[in-house]
């Protein structure tokens, strides 16, 4: 994969940089990122919701064969993380020292570099999970 375009990265800043999602005013569902229709109840009014940076690992894998943007990183751990107060995301799990990844592991999201210098010549940032 090539790094996403500068325009796309800019659109995604609020969610990727600030972990901004949305809380459905009708049913309370937490959406990440925000969207126009609540997938849980169909309502269309939301408040901005900043995700918690604390969560737990729901599942994980160790990726040994990666796409071109992540080849230099293999093997790396990818996880689904469920956050306190709602919201789930897929991200890398990193900075494990003498520790094996496991389901239920408490983690914290940290702002990190995700991909570098694709066609657009920009560096893409986002969040990775680390043990807490």
């Amino acid at each position, binding site marked *: 994969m090539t790094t996403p375009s500068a325009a796309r990265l800019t659109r995604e800043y609020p969610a990727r940089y600030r972990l901004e999602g949305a809380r459905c005013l009708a049913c309370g569902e937490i959406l990440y990122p925000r969207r126009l229709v609540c997938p849980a109840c169909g309502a269309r009014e939301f408040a901005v919701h900043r995700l918690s940076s604390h969560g737990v690992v729901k*599942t994980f894998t160790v*990726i040994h064969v*990666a796409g071109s943007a992540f080849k230099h990183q293999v093997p790396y751990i*990818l996880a689904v993380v469920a956050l306190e107060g709602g919201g789930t995301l*897929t991200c890398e799990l990193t900075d494990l020292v003498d520790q094996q990844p496991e*389901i239920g592991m408490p983690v914290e999201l940290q702002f990190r570099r995700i991909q570098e210098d694709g066609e657009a010549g920009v560096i893409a940032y986002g969040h*990775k999970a680390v043990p807490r």
Partner: protein
Amino acid sequence: MRDVCIIGVGMNDWGELWDLSLRTIWTQAALAALADAGVDKVDAMTVGCMSGGLFVGQEHLGALLADELGMAGIPATRVESACASGGVALRTGFLEVASGLADVVLVTGVEKMTDCSNDEATAALATAADQEWEVFPGATFPGLYAMMARAHMAAFGTTREQMAMVAVKNHANGIHNPHAQYRRAVTVDEVLNGTMVADPLTVLSCSPITDGAAAVVLSDKETARRLAKGRPLVRIAGVGLATDRMALHNRADLTALNAVTAAAQKAYAMAGVTPEAIQVAEVHDCFTIAEIMIIEALGFVPRGQGGPATAAGETGLGGRIPVNPSGGLKSKGHPVGATGVAQAVEVTLQLRGEAGARQVAGARIGLTQNMGGTGASSVVHVLEVIP
């Protein structure tokens, strides 16, 4: 709705076909199905293809391939639903005949995956996942299925050995399929000790990259009777298509394939059958864990029992419910857009009693299950022999 029958089937020999183009392998399969049906013209055609654009730089496949077949002029539609494109193309053709819009429809699927580099193919396949929120942070397709496998192992005690048995079984079946890409047996040890792709999935836990095409000819029942030539008449008795949340992380239960269950329930209800009635099934074993989760979602085995049932031989040839007698995606190959159509080719051959050494004795009712992405789309067809 009118009854819809499958009156002809065909596919080419699947593999890495460097000497053949997309249009050539597609035409081989289409001509084989037309010859099998005994027709030389059709009212319309559909083409299931995930990504002609990314794999070979060619879109507009409906017109291109109708022209290639000497049929420029007919209505021709390309259908895309990631790896479920073929199954959804079959459903589209079914609707055309059932509605009375057409009497004879050529349903096809094709994917030409080896004209680009492995990196390009991997990137093309990854477009079946959420590009912004799964692939951007580092997910690969095997990685997403590996995370489903981990969740299934944690919830139900499913083991690596049980998952490996899916590959062992399907490769054993594929030996008997002359069209299959990998006609060789594999052992549990070979699967477990192969190169790790995404833990716990090794290279032999994954379906391969394949060039291939498949085709079936559909018609109304009266036309089918006229062309039956004494062969059993195969009817599409039930059709189901459903979707699920696109990104794996947005699903409440990572061990369930809700779209598969929903599609199956629709198809079973339409056919008036229960899972117990199914005698042979072709399912979407893109990864070994997928077959385990699918046989649970289809209701062939209880939730969480897919691993033990596979290890006990329940899904083998001669087992309680033979699954993937063709070799499945694992051994036969997985040219993504062709897979759903090829499943219908296999089940039709099984119901006609023409499947040779991999024949499931006396099969009268069968099922195909095809899915896209990590199960965000699934399409199920129930096929039966009718008098």
